[in-house]
Protein backbone atom coordinates (compact mmCIF):
# COMPACT_ATOMS: atom_id res chain seq x y z
CA UNK A 1 0.00 0.00 0.00
CA UNK A 2 1.52 3.31 -1.11
CA UNK A 3 1.82 6.14 1.35
CA UNK A 4 0.99 9.26 -0.64
CA UNK A 5 2.05 11.54 2.18
CA UNK A 6 5.75 10.68 1.90
CA UNK A 7 7.52 13.34 -0.15
CA UNK A 8 10.62 12.89 -2.28
CA UNK A 9 13.76 14.99 -2.13
CA UNK A 10 14.35 17.26 -5.10
CA UNK A 11 17.47 19.27 -5.86
CA UNK A 12 17.43 22.97 -6.72
CA UNK A 13 19.07 23.24 -10.16
CA UNK A 14 18.70 26.98 -10.48
CA UNK A 15 17.10 29.96 -8.76
CA UNK A 16 15.76 32.93 -10.74
CA UNK A 17 14.98 35.98 -8.64
CA UNK A 18 12.09 38.02 -10.07
CA UNK A 19 11.38 40.32 -7.14
CA UNK A 20 12.49 40.52 -3.50
CA UNK A 21 9.84 38.01 -2.49
CA UNK A 22 9.25 35.95 -5.64
CA UNK A 23 11.79 33.45 -6.92
CA UNK A 24 11.51 30.61 -9.39
CA UNK A 25 13.13 27.40 -8.19
CA UNK A 26 14.06 24.97 -10.95
CA UNK A 27 13.63 21.56 -9.30
CA UNK A 28 14.88 18.17 -10.45
CA UNK A 29 11.85 16.17 -11.56
CA UNK A 30 11.27 13.50 -14.17
CA UNK A 31 7.72 12.38 -14.78
CA UNK A 32 4.35 13.33 -16.17
CA UNK A 33 3.29 16.82 -15.26
CA UNK A 34 1.15 19.56 -16.83
CA UNK A 35 1.05 23.31 -16.44
CA UNK A 36 -1.57 24.26 -13.87
CA UNK A 37 -0.90 21.23 -11.68
CA UNK A 38 0.72 21.73 -8.30
CA UNK A 39 3.14 20.12 -5.87
CA UNK A 40 3.06 20.13 -2.09
CA UNK A 41 6.54 21.38 -1.22
CA UNK A 42 7.87 20.91 2.26
CA UNK A 43 10.59 21.64 4.70
CA UNK A 44 10.40 19.07 7.48
CA UNK A 45 9.56 20.61 10.86
CA UNK A 46 8.17 23.73 9.17
CA UNK A 47 5.37 22.36 7.03
CA UNK A 48 3.97 21.98 3.55
CA UNK A 49 2.70 24.48 0.99
CA UNK A 50 0.94 23.95 -2.34
CA UNK A 51 2.89 25.52 -5.23
CA UNK A 52 1.79 25.46 -8.85
CA UNK A 53 4.04 24.35 -11.68
CA UNK A 54 5.30 27.38 -13.58
CA UNK A 55 7.49 25.60 -16.10
CA UNK A 56 8.29 22.12 -17.34
CA UNK A 57 11.44 20.64 -18.84
CA UNK A 58 12.73 17.16 -19.54
CA UNK A 59 14.33 16.74 -16.15
CA UNK A 60 12.89 19.61 -14.15
CA UNK A 61 9.83 21.56 -13.07
CA UNK A 62 9.85 25.26 -12.23
CA UNK A 63 8.10 26.35 -9.06
CA UNK A 64 7.59 30.07 -8.64
CA UNK A 65 7.34 30.73 -4.94
CA UNK A 66 6.34 33.82 -3.04
CA UNK A 67 7.88 34.28 0.37
CA UNK A 68 4.82 34.67 2.57
CA UNK A 69 5.07 32.16 5.39
CA UNK A 70 7.09 29.76 7.47
CA UNK A 71 7.70 27.15 4.79
CA UNK A 72 8.40 29.54 1.95
CA UNK A 73 10.57 31.61 4.28
CA UNK A 74 12.76 28.55 4.88
CA UNK A 75 12.87 27.72 1.17
CA UNK A 76 14.18 31.22 0.43
CA UNK A 77 17.15 30.48 2.71
CA UNK A 78 18.25 27.66 0.38
CA UNK A 79 20.81 27.93 -2.43
CA UNK A 80 21.28 26.26 -5.79
CA UNK A 81 22.49 22.71 -5.22
CA UNK A 82 20.57 22.20 -2.00
CA UNK A 83 17.25 20.37 -1.84
CA UNK A 84 13.76 20.40 -0.44
CA UNK A 85 10.90 17.91 -0.34
CA UNK A 86 8.00 17.67 -2.75
CA UNK A 87 5.03 15.42 -3.42
CA UNK A 88 2.76 15.50 -6.42
CA UNK A 89 1.95 16.57 -9.03
CA UNK A 90 -1.71 17.02 -8.08
CA UNK A 91 -4.76 18.40 -9.83
CA UNK A 92 -5.82 18.29 -13.46
CA UNK A 93 -3.79 21.11 -15.00
CA UNK A 94 -4.30 22.61 -18.45
CA UNK A 95 -4.88 20.19 -21.31
CA UNK A 96 -3.39 21.55 -24.50
CA UNK A 97 -6.01 19.72 -26.60
CA UNK A 98 -8.56 22.28 -25.40
CA UNK A 99 -6.65 25.08 -27.13
CA UNK A 100 -4.98 23.49 -30.14
CA UNK A 101 -6.19 24.69 -33.50
CA UNK A 102 -7.82 27.76 -31.98
CA UNK A 103 -6.98 31.37 -31.44
CA UNK A 104 -5.91 31.51 -27.81
CA UNK A 105 -6.27 34.40 -25.38
CA UNK A 106 -4.42 34.13 -22.06
CA UNK A 107 -5.25 36.68 -19.37
CA UNK A 108 -3.29 36.42 -16.12
CA UNK A 109 -2.59 38.64 -13.16
CA UNK A 110 0.15 38.66 -10.52
CA UNK A 111 1.16 35.22 -9.27
CA UNK A 112 -1.64 33.88 -11.47
CA UNK A 113 0.91 34.10 -14.27
CA UNK A 114 2.82 31.13 -12.78
CA UNK A 115 0.29 28.39 -13.55
CA UNK A 116 -0.14 29.62 -17.15
CA UNK A 117 3.52 30.26 -17.88
CA UNK A 118 3.88 26.68 -19.12
CA UNK A 119 0.93 27.11 -21.46
CA UNK A 120 2.21 30.40 -22.86
CA UNK A 121 5.73 29.02 -23.34
CA UNK A 122 4.45 25.87 -25.01
CA UNK A 123 2.30 27.65 -27.57
CA UNK A 124 4.96 30.33 -27.98
CA UNK A 125 7.32 27.61 -29.11
CA UNK A 126 4.70 25.64 -31.04
CA UNK A 127 2.99 28.52 -32.81
CA UNK A 128 1.73 26.22 -35.55
CA UNK A 129 -0.52 24.52 -32.99
CA UNK A 130 -2.64 27.63 -32.42
CA UNK A 131 -4.07 30.07 -34.93
CA UNK A 132 -2.91 33.07 -32.98
CA UNK A 133 -1.81 33.73 -29.42
CA UNK A 134 -2.80 36.83 -27.42
CA UNK A 135 -1.42 37.24 -23.93
CA UNK A 136 -2.45 39.93 -21.47
CA UNK A 137 -0.44 39.99 -18.26
CA UNK A 138 -1.03 42.35 -15.37
CA UNK A 139 1.08 43.15 -12.32
CA UNK A 140 0.72 45.69 -9.53
CA UNK A 141 3.79 47.74 -10.38
CA UNK A 142 6.95 47.38 -12.49
CA UNK A 143 8.80 45.96 -9.48
CA UNK A 144 6.23 43.15 -9.24
CA UNK A 145 6.78 41.90 -12.79
CA UNK A 146 7.64 38.20 -12.99
CA UNK A 147 9.42 36.25 -15.73
CA UNK A 148 11.16 39.22 -17.37
CA UNK A 149 13.38 36.88 -19.40
CA UNK A 150 10.32 35.10 -20.79
CA UNK A 151 8.58 38.38 -21.58
CA UNK A 152 11.39 39.33 -24.01
CA UNK A 153 10.90 36.04 -25.83
CA UNK A 154 7.12 36.15 -25.71
CA UNK A 155 7.11 39.64 -27.22
CA UNK A 156 8.61 38.14 -30.37
CA UNK A 157 6.41 35.07 -30.40
CA UNK A 158 2.94 36.48 -29.76
CA UNK A 159 0.66 39.45 -29.33
CA UNK A 160 1.74 40.39 -25.80
CA UNK A 161 0.21 43.10 -23.67
CA UNK A 162 1.99 43.80 -20.41
CA UNK A 163 0.29 46.18 -18.02
CA UNK A 164 0.81 47.39 -14.48
CA UNK A 165 -1.85 48.86 -12.20
CA UNK A 166 0.13 52.03 -11.77
CA UNK A 167 3.63 53.28 -12.43
CA UNK A 168 5.73 56.43 -12.41
CA UNK A 169 7.66 55.07 -15.37
CA UNK A 170 5.96 56.07 -18.64
CA UNK A 171 7.43 53.16 -20.56
CA UNK A 172 4.84 50.83 -19.00
CA UNK A 173 1.25 50.45 -20.03
CA UNK A 174 -1.03 51.05 -17.07
CA UNK A 175 -4.47 49.86 -16.12
CA UNK A 176 -6.07 46.56 -15.21
CA UNK A 177 -6.01 43.62 -17.59
CA UNK A 178 -9.74 44.09 -18.18
CA UNK A 179 -8.98 47.41 -19.90
CA UNK A 180 -7.19 45.62 -22.73
CA UNK A 181 -9.62 42.76 -23.37
CA UNK A 182 -12.07 44.89 -25.44
CA UNK A 183 -9.16 45.80 -27.74
CA UNK A 184 -8.67 42.21 -28.80
CA UNK A 185 -9.96 41.39 -32.23
CA UNK A 186 -10.09 37.63 -32.68
CA UNK A 187 -10.51 36.54 -36.31
CA UNK A 188 -13.29 34.15 -35.49
CA UNK A 189 -14.75 34.43 -32.02
CA UNK A 190 -16.32 30.97 -32.33
CA UNK A 191 -12.92 29.37 -32.78
CA UNK A 192 -11.28 31.15 -29.91
CA UNK A 193 -10.38 29.82 -26.47
CA UNK A 194 -9.42 31.81 -23.41
CA UNK A 195 -7.60 31.09 -20.16
CA UNK A 196 -8.04 33.43 -17.21
CA UNK A 197 -6.01 33.08 -14.01
CA UNK A 198 -5.56 35.53 -11.18
CA UNK A 199 -7.18 36.82 -7.99
CA UNK A 200 -10.94 36.01 -7.76
CA UNK A 201 -12.07 39.57 -8.51
CA UNK A 202 -9.78 39.88 -11.51
CA UNK A 203 -11.06 36.57 -12.92
CA UNK A 204 -14.65 37.61 -12.47
CA UNK A 205 -14.27 40.86 -14.41
CA UNK A 206 -11.91 39.46 -17.04
CA UNK A 207 -14.41 36.68 -17.83
CA UNK A 208 -17.18 39.29 -18.05
CA UNK A 209 -15.14 41.22 -20.63
CA UNK A 210 -14.48 38.07 -22.67
CA UNK A 211 -18.17 37.24 -22.67
CA UNK A 212 -18.83 40.77 -23.93
CA UNK A 213 -16.49 40.05 -26.83
CA UNK A 214 -18.94 37.32 -27.80
CA UNK A 215 -17.19 34.31 -26.33
CA UNK A 216 -19.25 31.52 -24.83
CA UNK A 217 -18.70 30.20 -21.30
CA UNK A 218 -17.58 26.85 -22.73
CA UNK A 219 -14.68 28.60 -24.48
CA UNK A 220 -13.18 30.00 -21.28
CA UNK A 221 -11.00 28.19 -18.74
CA UNK A 222 -10.16 29.40 -15.27
CA UNK A 223 -7.91 28.10 -12.49
CA UNK A 224 -9.03 28.35 -8.87
CA UNK A 225 -6.58 28.92 -6.07
CA UNK A 226 -7.76 27.47 -2.77
CA UNK A 227 -6.15 26.14 0.38
CA UNK A 228 -4.84 22.68 -0.36
CA UNK A 229 -3.40 20.95 2.67
CA UNK A 230 -3.23 17.40 1.37
CA UNK A 231 -3.65 17.51 -2.41
CA UNK A 232 -5.34 14.12 -2.15
CA UNK A 233 -9.03 14.93 -1.75
CA UNK A 234 -8.96 14.25 1.97
CA UNK A 235 -8.35 17.34 4.08
CA UNK A 236 -11.44 19.21 2.84
CA UNK A 237 -10.08 22.76 2.85
CA UNK A 238 -10.28 23.28 -0.92
CA UNK A 239 -13.85 22.07 -1.35
CA UNK A 240 -16.39 24.23 -3.19
CA UNK A 241 -19.91 22.73 -3.41
CA UNK A 242 -19.43 19.07 -4.39
CA UNK A 243 -16.05 19.71 -5.96
CA UNK A 244 -12.56 19.16 -4.58
CA UNK A 245 -10.31 21.71 -6.26
CA UNK A 246 -7.24 19.52 -5.69
CA UNK A 247 -8.80 16.51 -7.47
CA UNK A 248 -11.27 17.93 -9.98
CA UNK A 249 -9.45 21.25 -10.56
CA UNK A 250 -7.77 23.62 -10.17
CA UNK A 251 -8.56 24.16 -13.87
CA UNK A 252 -12.23 24.39 -14.79
CA UNK A 253 -14.11 25.24 -17.91
CA UNK A 254 -16.01 28.39 -16.95
CA UNK A 255 -19.39 26.84 -17.74
CA UNK A 256 -18.71 24.44 -14.86
CA UNK A 257 -16.47 26.67 -12.77
CA UNK A 258 -19.05 29.43 -12.48
CA UNK A 259 -21.36 27.11 -10.56
CA UNK A 260 -18.87 26.75 -7.74
CA UNK A 261 -19.16 29.06 -4.80
CA UNK A 262 -17.17 29.32 -1.59
Amino acid sequence: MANEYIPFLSKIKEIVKHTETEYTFRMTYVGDVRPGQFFEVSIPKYGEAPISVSGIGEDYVDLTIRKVGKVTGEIFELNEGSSFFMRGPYGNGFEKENYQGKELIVVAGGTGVSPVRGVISYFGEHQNEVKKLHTILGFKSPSDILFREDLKKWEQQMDLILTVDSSDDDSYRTGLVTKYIPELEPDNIHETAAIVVGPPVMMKFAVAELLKLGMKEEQIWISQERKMCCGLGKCGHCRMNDTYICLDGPVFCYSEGKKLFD
Partner: protein
Amino acid sequence: MGKRFNNDEMQKIFEILQESYDVYGPRIYQGTGCFSDTDVIRYGRLDSWEELVWDQKSDYSFKEVLFPISETILYFTENEMKTADGAARQRLIFLKSCDFHALKRLDEMYLKNGAEDYYYRRMRENTVFAVMGCKESGKNCFCVSMGTNRCEEYDMYIFQDEKGCYMELRCRELEELLWDYGQNVQEEPTFVEKNEVHVEVPEKLPDTIHQDSMWQEYGSRCIGCGRCNFVCPTCTCFTMQDIFYKDNPKAGERRRVWASCQVDGYSDIAGGHSFRQNQGERMRFKVLHKISDYKKRFGYHMCVGCGRCENVCPEYISYIACLQKLKEKEGK
Protein backbone atom coordinates in the same frame (compact mmCIF):
# COMPACT_ATOMS: atom_id res chain seq x y z
CA MET B 1 -29.36 -16.79 14.96
CA GLY B 2 -27.42 -15.45 17.93
CA LYS B 3 -26.25 -16.03 21.45
CA ARG B 4 -27.45 -15.03 24.87
CA PHE B 5 -25.21 -14.18 27.79
CA ASN B 6 -26.25 -13.27 31.28
CA ASN B 7 -24.72 -10.18 32.88
CA ASP B 8 -22.15 -12.17 34.89
CA GLU B 9 -20.88 -13.85 31.75
CA MET B 10 -20.32 -10.58 29.94
CA GLN B 11 -17.25 -9.58 31.97
CA LYS B 12 -15.70 -12.93 31.05
CA ILE B 13 -16.58 -12.39 27.37
CA PHE B 14 -15.08 -8.92 27.60
CA GLU B 15 -11.84 -10.36 28.95
CA ILE B 16 -11.70 -12.86 26.10
CA LEU B 17 -12.13 -10.03 23.62
CA GLN B 18 -9.42 -8.06 25.39
CA GLU B 19 -6.94 -10.85 24.79
CA SER B 20 -7.20 -10.28 21.04
CA TYR B 21 -8.30 -6.68 20.80
CA ASP B 22 -7.90 -3.27 22.31
CA VAL B 23 -11.56 -2.66 23.05
CA TYR B 24 -12.90 0.86 22.53
CA GLY B 25 -16.29 2.24 23.39
CA PRO B 26 -18.10 5.24 24.82
CA ARG B 27 -17.15 5.70 28.48
CA ILE B 28 -17.55 8.37 31.11
CA TYR B 29 -14.74 10.80 31.78
CA GLN B 30 -15.70 12.19 35.13
CA GLY B 31 -15.54 15.91 35.75
CA THR B 32 -14.16 16.72 32.30
CA GLY B 33 -17.39 18.21 30.94
CA CYS B 34 -17.86 21.71 29.65
CA PHE B 35 -19.33 22.94 32.96
CA SER B 36 -18.13 22.28 36.49
CA ASP B 37 -19.04 18.89 37.93
CA THR B 38 -20.21 17.59 34.56
CA ASP B 39 -18.91 14.53 32.79
CA VAL B 40 -18.09 13.81 29.20
CA ILE B 41 -18.93 10.61 27.40
CA ARG B 42 -16.43 9.96 24.71
CA TYR B 43 -14.49 7.11 23.19
CA GLY B 44 -11.62 5.53 25.01
CA ARG B 45 -10.13 2.14 25.71
CA LEU B 46 -12.37 0.12 27.99
CA ASP B 47 -10.85 -1.65 30.96
CA SER B 48 -13.99 -3.46 32.04
CA TRP B 49 -17.40 -4.36 30.62
CA GLU B 50 -19.05 -2.10 33.20
CA GLU B 51 -17.44 0.97 31.67
CA LEU B 52 -19.30 0.74 28.40
CA VAL B 53 -22.07 3.38 28.40
CA TRP B 54 -25.35 2.09 26.97
CA ASP B 55 -28.07 4.43 28.10
CA GLN B 56 -26.73 7.76 26.90
CA LYS B 57 -25.46 9.09 23.61
CA SER B 58 -21.73 9.73 23.57
CA ASP B 59 -20.93 13.44 23.29
CA TYR B 60 -18.20 12.66 20.77
CA SER B 61 -18.32 9.97 18.12
CA PHE B 62 -16.19 6.89 17.55
CA LYS B 63 -14.23 8.60 14.78
CA GLU B 64 -11.36 9.63 17.03
CA VAL B 65 -10.40 5.98 17.43
CA LEU B 66 -9.90 5.57 13.67
CA PHE B 67 -8.83 9.12 12.94
CA PRO B 68 -7.19 10.63 16.04
CA ILE B 69 -7.63 14.31 16.88
CA SER B 70 -3.91 14.69 16.34
CA GLU B 71 -2.07 11.94 14.50
CA THR B 72 1.65 11.84 13.87
CA ILE B 73 2.23 10.64 10.32
CA LEU B 74 5.98 11.20 9.82
CA TYR B 75 8.96 11.56 12.10
CA PHE B 76 11.94 13.65 11.08
CA THR B 77 15.47 13.35 12.27
CA GLU B 78 18.39 15.23 10.79
CA ASN B 79 18.34 13.64 7.32
CA GLU B 80 15.72 10.99 7.67
CA MET B 81 12.00 10.73 7.41
CA LYS B 82 10.17 7.80 8.97
CA THR B 83 6.54 6.74 8.71
CA ALA B 84 4.92 6.66 12.15
CA ASP B 85 4.05 3.17 13.36
CA GLY B 86 0.44 2.12 13.47
CA ALA B 87 -1.43 0.63 16.39
CA ALA B 88 0.24 -2.58 17.52
CA ARG B 89 -2.94 -4.48 18.30
CA GLN B 90 -6.24 -5.08 16.60
CA ARG B 91 -9.13 -2.96 17.74
CA LEU B 92 -12.75 -3.60 18.46
CA ILE B 93 -15.05 -0.59 18.58
CA PHE B 94 -18.50 -0.57 20.19
CA LEU B 95 -20.71 1.95 18.40
CA LYS B 96 -24.34 2.65 17.60
CA SER B 97 -26.05 2.25 14.26
CA CYS B 98 -25.83 5.95 13.28
CA ASP B 99 -22.09 5.90 13.88
CA PHE B 100 -21.73 2.65 11.97
CA HIS B 101 -23.34 4.42 9.01
CA ALA B 102 -20.90 7.30 9.56
CA LEU B 103 -18.10 4.76 9.04
CA LYS B 104 -19.26 4.39 5.45
CA ARG B 105 -18.84 8.17 5.02
CA LEU B 106 -15.34 8.08 6.49
CA ASP B 107 -14.47 5.20 4.14
CA GLU B 108 -15.84 7.16 1.20
CA MET B 109 -13.54 10.08 1.90
CA TYR B 110 -10.42 8.29 3.02
CA LEU B 111 -10.48 5.25 0.80
CA LYS B 112 -12.33 6.37 -2.32
CA ASN B 113 -12.21 10.14 -2.84
CA GLY B 114 -8.85 10.35 -4.62
CA ALA B 115 -6.00 8.06 -3.61
CA GLU B 116 -6.33 5.79 -0.57
CA ASP B 117 -5.23 7.27 2.70
CA TYR B 118 -2.41 5.11 4.03
CA TYR B 119 -2.97 5.86 7.71
CA TYR B 120 -6.72 5.42 7.65
CA ARG B 121 -6.49 2.20 5.64
CA ARG B 122 -3.95 0.81 8.10
CA MET B 123 -6.18 1.56 11.07
CA ARG B 124 -9.35 0.45 9.31
CA GLU B 125 -7.99 -2.95 8.33
CA ASN B 126 -7.05 -3.59 11.91
CA THR B 127 -10.45 -2.81 13.37
CA VAL B 128 -13.70 -4.72 13.87
CA PHE B 129 -17.03 -3.09 14.69
CA ALA B 130 -19.64 -4.07 17.25
CA VAL B 131 -22.98 -2.34 16.77
CA MET B 132 -24.84 -1.66 20.02
CA GLY B 133 -28.61 -1.89 19.57
CA CYS B 134 -30.37 1.21 20.92
CA LYS B 135 -33.21 0.50 23.30
CA GLU B 136 -34.61 3.96 22.80
CA SER B 137 -33.89 7.06 20.86
CA GLY B 138 -31.64 9.70 22.47
CA LYS B 139 -31.88 13.46 22.73
CA ASN B 140 -32.28 15.02 19.27
CA CYS B 141 -31.65 11.74 17.46
CA PHE B 142 -33.19 11.59 13.99
CA CYS B 143 -31.60 8.44 12.60
CA VAL B 144 -34.95 7.14 11.34
CA SER B 145 -35.33 10.22 9.11
CA MET B 146 -31.84 9.66 7.74
CA GLY B 147 -32.31 5.92 7.30
CA THR B 148 -29.40 5.11 9.59
CA ASN B 149 -31.33 3.49 12.43
CA ARG B 150 -30.76 -0.06 11.12
CA CYS B 151 -27.62 -1.67 9.80
CA GLU B 152 -26.40 -5.04 8.67
CA GLU B 153 -22.78 -5.32 7.73
CA TYR B 154 -21.37 -5.23 11.23
CA ASP B 155 -18.90 -7.72 12.68
CA MET B 156 -20.90 -8.01 15.89
CA TYR B 157 -24.34 -6.91 16.98
CA ILE B 158 -25.02 -6.62 20.69
CA PHE B 159 -28.10 -5.63 22.64
CA GLN B 160 -28.31 -5.25 26.40
CA ASP B 161 -31.47 -5.81 28.44
CA GLU B 162 -32.43 -6.92 31.96
CA LYS B 163 -31.67 -10.54 31.15
CA GLY B 164 -28.18 -9.84 29.87
CA CYS B 165 -26.96 -9.50 26.32
CA TYR B 166 -28.08 -10.77 22.95
CA MET B 167 -25.22 -11.08 20.44
CA GLU B 168 -24.84 -11.84 16.76
CA LEU B 169 -21.48 -12.46 15.10
CA ARG B 170 -20.68 -11.91 11.46
CA CYS B 171 -16.93 -12.07 11.57
CA ARG B 172 -15.03 -15.33 11.55
CA GLU B 173 -12.42 -14.26 14.03
CA LEU B 174 -14.99 -13.22 16.61
CA GLU B 175 -17.00 -16.39 15.99
CA GLU B 176 -13.98 -18.53 16.70
CA LEU B 177 -13.18 -16.62 19.86
CA LEU B 178 -16.68 -16.84 21.31
CA TRP B 179 -17.84 -20.16 19.83
CA ASP B 180 -17.87 -22.05 23.11
CA TYR B 181 -19.69 -19.44 25.15
CA GLY B 182 -23.28 -18.39 25.73
CA GLN B 183 -26.54 -19.98 24.77
CA ASN B 184 -27.70 -20.26 21.19
CA VAL B 185 -31.02 -18.50 20.72
CA GLN B 186 -33.38 -17.47 17.94
CA GLU B 187 -33.84 -13.71 18.24
CA GLU B 188 -33.85 -10.71 15.98
CA PRO B 189 -31.59 -7.70 16.45
CA THR B 190 -33.36 -4.69 17.93
CA PHE B 191 -33.10 -1.26 16.36
CA VAL B 192 -34.80 2.04 17.11
CA GLU B 193 -37.75 2.49 14.78
CA LYS B 194 -39.03 5.87 15.99
CA ASN B 195 -37.43 9.15 17.05
CA GLU B 196 -39.04 12.06 18.81
CA VAL B 197 -37.48 14.31 16.20
CA HIS B 198 -38.54 13.88 12.62
CA VAL B 199 -36.63 15.68 9.89
CA GLU B 200 -37.56 15.98 6.27
CA VAL B 201 -34.41 16.56 4.28
CA PRO B 202 -34.93 18.91 1.34
CA GLU B 203 -34.02 17.10 -1.86
CA LYS B 204 -34.66 19.92 -4.35
CA LEU B 205 -33.02 23.06 -3.08
CA PRO B 206 -32.98 26.08 -5.40
CA ASP B 207 -29.61 26.83 -7.07
CA THR B 208 -29.55 30.20 -5.33
CA ILE B 209 -29.88 28.76 -1.82
CA HIS B 210 -26.35 29.90 -0.92
CA GLN B 211 -27.45 33.50 -1.40
CA ASP B 212 -30.54 33.17 0.78
CA SER B 213 -30.86 35.67 3.61
CA MET B 214 -31.55 32.85 6.09
CA TRP B 215 -27.79 32.36 6.54
CA GLN B 216 -27.28 35.88 7.84
CA GLU B 217 -28.92 35.06 11.14
CA TYR B 218 -26.17 32.56 11.93
CA GLY B 219 -23.59 35.23 11.20
CA SER B 220 -24.40 37.08 14.39
CA ARG B 221 -25.13 34.05 16.54
CA CYS B 222 -22.37 31.53 15.77
CA ILE B 223 -19.12 32.11 17.67
CA GLY B 224 -17.07 29.86 15.39
CA CYS B 225 -15.96 27.39 18.05
CA GLY B 226 -16.09 24.39 15.72
CA ARG B 227 -17.64 22.03 18.27
CA CYS B 228 -20.32 20.96 15.80
CA ASN B 229 -17.56 19.68 13.51
CA PHE B 230 -15.63 17.94 16.24
CA VAL B 231 -18.60 16.00 17.58
CA CYS B 232 -19.82 15.08 14.08
CA PRO B 233 -19.07 11.47 13.15
CA THR B 234 -18.89 12.36 9.46
CA CYS B 235 -16.66 15.45 9.48
CA THR B 236 -13.27 14.44 8.11
CA CYS B 237 -11.31 17.67 7.61
CA PHE B 238 -7.77 17.99 8.87
CA THR B 239 -4.79 20.31 8.62
CA MET B 240 -1.19 19.27 8.18
CA GLN B 241 1.06 20.57 10.92
CA ASP B 242 4.82 20.29 11.39
CA ILE B 243 6.53 20.75 14.70
CA PHE B 244 10.05 20.47 16.03
CA TYR B 245 11.01 19.48 19.52
CA LYS B 246 12.02 22.31 21.83
CA ASP B 247 14.91 20.37 23.31
CA ASN B 248 16.14 19.15 19.92
CA PRO B 249 15.17 21.42 17.03
CA LYS B 250 16.84 19.06 14.56
CA ALA B 251 14.13 16.47 15.15
CA GLY B 252 10.40 16.83 14.77
CA GLU B 253 7.28 15.40 13.26
CA ARG B 254 4.49 15.98 10.77
CA ARG B 255 0.99 15.57 12.10
CA ARG B 256 -2.49 15.91 10.89
CA VAL B 257 -4.96 17.49 13.26
CA TRP B 258 -8.72 17.88 13.02
CA ALA B 259 -9.85 21.04 11.31
CA SER B 260 -13.16 22.89 11.43
CA CYS B 261 -14.77 24.80 8.57
CA GLN B 262 -16.36 27.04 11.24
CA VAL B 263 -13.05 28.26 12.66
CA ASP B 264 -10.95 31.18 11.36
CA GLY B 265 -8.12 30.23 9.04
CA TYR B 266 -9.79 27.19 7.51
CA SER B 267 -9.76 28.60 3.99
CA ASP B 268 -6.89 31.11 4.18
CA ILE B 269 -4.47 30.94 1.29
CA ALA B 270 -0.94 32.28 0.97
CA GLY B 271 -0.85 35.99 0.43
CA GLY B 272 -3.74 36.69 2.76
CA HIS B 273 -6.90 35.91 0.82
CA SER B 274 -9.54 34.04 2.78
CA PHE B 275 -12.96 32.77 1.78
CA ARG B 276 -16.15 32.70 3.87
CA GLN B 277 -15.19 35.25 6.51
CA ASN B 278 -18.70 35.46 7.89
CA GLN B 279 -19.99 32.74 10.25
CA GLY B 280 -23.26 32.66 8.32
CA GLU B 281 -21.39 31.61 5.20
CA ARG B 282 -19.55 28.96 7.19
CA MET B 283 -22.81 27.57 8.55
CA ARG B 284 -24.14 27.41 4.99
CA PHE B 285 -20.95 25.65 3.82
CA LYS B 286 -21.31 23.01 6.54
CA VAL B 287 -25.06 22.43 6.38
CA LEU B 288 -25.21 22.21 2.59
CA HIS B 289 -22.32 19.73 2.67
CA LYS B 290 -24.20 17.48 5.07
CA ILE B 291 -27.48 17.38 3.18
CA SER B 292 -26.75 18.40 -0.41
CA ASP B 293 -23.19 18.73 -1.73
CA TYR B 294 -21.95 15.39 -0.41
CA LYS B 295 -24.94 13.65 -1.94
CA LYS B 296 -24.30 15.26 -5.31
CA ARG B 297 -20.85 13.69 -5.31
CA PHE B 298 -21.44 10.33 -3.65
CA GLY B 299 -25.15 9.67 -4.07
CA TYR B 300 -26.33 9.60 -0.44
CA HIS B 301 -26.52 12.06 2.43
CA MET B 302 -23.52 12.73 4.62
CA CYS B 303 -25.54 13.50 7.74
CA VAL B 304 -26.49 10.40 9.73
CA GLY B 305 -28.88 12.15 12.11
CA CYS B 306 -26.99 11.52 15.35
CA GLY B 307 -28.00 14.96 16.65
CA ARG B 308 -24.69 15.60 18.43
CA CYS B 309 -24.14 19.00 16.78
CA GLU B 310 -27.57 20.02 18.01
CA ASN B 311 -26.70 19.03 21.56
CA VAL B 312 -23.23 20.56 21.73
CA CYS B 313 -23.75 24.07 20.35
CA PRO B 314 -23.02 26.65 23.09
CA GLU B 315 -25.15 29.19 21.23
CA TYR B 316 -28.13 26.87 20.91
CA ILE B 317 -28.01 27.02 17.12
CA SER B 318 -30.32 24.30 15.92
CA TYR B 319 -29.16 22.31 12.93
CA ILE B 320 -32.52 20.54 12.90
CA ALA B 321 -34.38 23.86 12.72
CA CYS B 322 -32.04 24.89 9.92
CA LEU B 323 -32.99 21.77 7.96
CA GLN B 324 -36.64 22.56 8.54
CA LYS B 325 -36.12 26.08 7.20
CA LEU B 326 -34.40 24.64 4.16
CA LYS B 327 -37.28 22.26 3.62
CA GLU B 328 -39.58 25.27 3.34
CA LYS B 329 -37.36 26.73 0.62
CA GLU B 330 -37.61 23.56 -1.43
CA GLY B 331 -38.91 24.03 -4.94
CA LYS B 332 -38.99 27.81 -4.57
